[in-house]
């Protein structure tokens, strides 16, 4: 045990200090920070950072020639409280004042009406200097109201027209099979976000640390330090020491990334973004995070053991990629099946994969987070996973014990089986 502690410490210290680890972690933190601040950056770049109130408002010029009534109504609409727009009438499109205002950027563009025929507005053309989505959306709703007012004339008050245009709130209530109106059981949006983040984070972490283990074992073999190591400590202690040491490296990385996410969420300018997306951190489910950690740990050990076994049978780092392919494939299945099923978490596929030990960690995480799952299903899946890990631990130890002393070409499964019989663990 003492030796294992030494191995864990040495592995952790060396791996956590490697440039590749530092750089990948840094890149992930930077990318995450950029990604999380993109909505804010967009605002800043569009000059809508809040302190330029003038620039955020819409300024429209109207040519009153053919539609003085409409122009007046539009002006009235713009003056309503809560509408951040100005409407300035000009007598004609070739008016010198309008041209001056356009070239100064004081107005976004001008409106021309065609001859009014019938009750409502005819066709309206907005001549604009730069494409402005904000101006267009303002005009869309403004002209809608103006049109309604023109048609309704004096028969309806502006308040009545506004009430007509207001959206009707639609509530939903799910009906369960027994006909009882139950409260909506759908998961809060935050769960989808958390599951999504955890899927990506766990997949990346497991794949990265797994490869780290395999590469470490292979490089110890190819640098021949392995011969000294296995005469110093039992292969079993070495394998588990390495697996645990690198597990701590993976945890450290996840902790750093989690801290980066938290720090970004804490930034004052981002609090609004969360609200915009209807995310409430208060709804964050602690049990989901706990299950996530348990599944991550189990998933990590399963893949780490497989990677350690693969690493031990390869003599040269160049051959590692090819030998690790099957394990990597399992990793991809483990990741992509739940990732593509995130909006349909209750399909048969996910139910099946959530019990197959090699794919269950992330599939079960998806079901717990956003699907319907019974407690016994979680327990059964975890038990299957645990049994598999113990089985793999035994098998990996045997392969490791045998593989680390086999040099030359990669042994076939038959050779490996034969050699495995020759060693006790």
């Amino acid at each position, binding site marked *: 045990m003492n030796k294992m502690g030494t191995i864990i410490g040495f592995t952790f210290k060396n791996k956590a200090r490697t440039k590749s680890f530092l750089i990948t972690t840094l890149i992930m933190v930077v990318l995450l920070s950029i990604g999380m601040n993109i909505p804010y950056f967009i605002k800043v770049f569009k000059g809508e950072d809040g302190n330029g109130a003038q620039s955020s408002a819409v300024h429209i010029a109207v040519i009153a020639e053919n539609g003085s009534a409409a122009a007046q109504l539009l002006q009235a609409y713009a003056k309503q409280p809560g509408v951040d727009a100005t409407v300035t009438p000009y007598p004609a499109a070739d008016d010198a004042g309008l041209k001056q205002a356009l070239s100064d950027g004081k107005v976004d563009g001008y409106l021309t009406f065609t001859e009014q025929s019938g009750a409502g507005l005819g066709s309206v053309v907005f001549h604009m200097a730069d494409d402005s989505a904000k101006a267009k959306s303002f005009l869309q709703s403004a002209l809608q109201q103006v049109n309604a007012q023109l048609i309704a004339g004096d028969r309806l008050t502006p308040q009545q027209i506004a009430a007509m245009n207001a959206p009707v709130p639609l509530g939903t209530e799910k009906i369960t099979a027994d006909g009882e109106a139950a409260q909506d059981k759908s998961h809060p949006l935050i769960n989808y976000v958390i599951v999504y983040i955890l899927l990506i984070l766990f997949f990346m972490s497991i794949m990265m640390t797994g490869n780290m283990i395999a590469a470490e074992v292979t490089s110890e073999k190819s*640098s*021949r*330090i392995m*011969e000294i*190591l296995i005469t110093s400590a039992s292969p079993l202690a070495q394998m588990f020491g390495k697996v645990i040491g690198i597990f701590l490296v993976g945890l450290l990385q996840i902790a750093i990334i989690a801290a980066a996410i938290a720090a970004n969420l804490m930034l004052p300018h981002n609090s609004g973004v969360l609200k915009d997306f209807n995310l409430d951190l208060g709804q964050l489910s602690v049990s989901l995070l706990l299950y996530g950690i348990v599944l991550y740990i189990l998933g990590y050990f399963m893949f780490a053991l497989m990677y350690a076994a693969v690493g031990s049978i390869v003599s040269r780092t160049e051959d590692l990629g090819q030998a690790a392919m099957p394990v990597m494939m399992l990793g991809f299945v483990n990741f992509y099946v739940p990732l593509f099923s995130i909006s349909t978490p209750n399909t048969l596929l996910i139910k099946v994969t959530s019990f197959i030990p090699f794919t269950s960690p992330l599939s079960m995480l998806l079901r717990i987070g956003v699907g319907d799952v019974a407690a016994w299903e979680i327990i059964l899946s975890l038990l299957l996973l645990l049994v598999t890990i113990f089985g793999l631990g035994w098998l990996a130890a045997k392969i490791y014990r045998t593989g680390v002393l086999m040099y030359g070409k990669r042994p076939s499964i038959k050779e490996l089986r034969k050699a495995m019989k020759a060693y006790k663990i």
Partner: protein
Amino acid sequence: MEALKLERVVKQYGDKTAVNGISLGVERGEIYGLLGANGAGKTTTMRMVLGLIYPDEGSIRYNGKPFSSELQAIMGYLPEERGLYPKVKVSEQINYLARLRGMSASDADKSLRYWLDRFDVPDYYNKKIEELSKGNQQKMGFIAAVVHKPQILILDEAFSGLDPVNVELLKDTVRELRDQGTSILFSTHRMEHVEELCRHITILDRSNTVVQGDLREIKQGYPREEVLLRTPGEVTGLDAILGVTAVERQERGYLVRITEIGAAQRILKAALEQGEVEHFEIKEPTLNQIFIRAVGESHE
């Protein structure tokens, strides 16, 4: 009691016998030479001694006891294809290896510093292995094998790839360890090193023991077949002497091959008849010759 004793140890890989019934014993404070051509079974024997692989038959005893993992603390190993972590500092990895072999961190550090001073390279303490020359990497490998003060030291080709100065340095070190009571199992292709260092040897040939025993006795057991003769003038008619098979003219004399020891006296007589003799020597067979004979014969 011998520190290390192998009795009729057999190891088979599939149908191939890697080691066929080797027996040997290494005393405390002895350097034991294990010789053999490539693939003769030296490394397999060493790995069995180290407990890396288990013998199929026979027994290996350490101070009279069978192998157990506690022995890892008293054994040191310098493998033939030596390796250390290329990107890790000397101090870190050697301390790590020493701690794995049961030393405390502070003892390990003290021992490492002693050895770096011994080899006159204290500044390597903070260097990475990849920054060192090959010979110096090998010295670090040697330190890794002895840093924990092993009682049984296994050196596989310890001196290969070193310059003469460093070979002498390591040889002195090995002798020093022997005098301190370390039992050393030593393999090499360089026969002169064995002649200088080893008391007992075993020559393996394709998994079998072909020559074994006290080096001096082995040498005496082999016929003396060469006579070195140095004279100021020329000596003629040497090849006509009974029992002489070949005469080789050298810079300052002759190297004469003979079939029986009596021929030597006849050569000396003939030379004295023709003039002065500066030097006359019936040469002992070198270990090199013994090796080539023992291994070569069975290859024919």
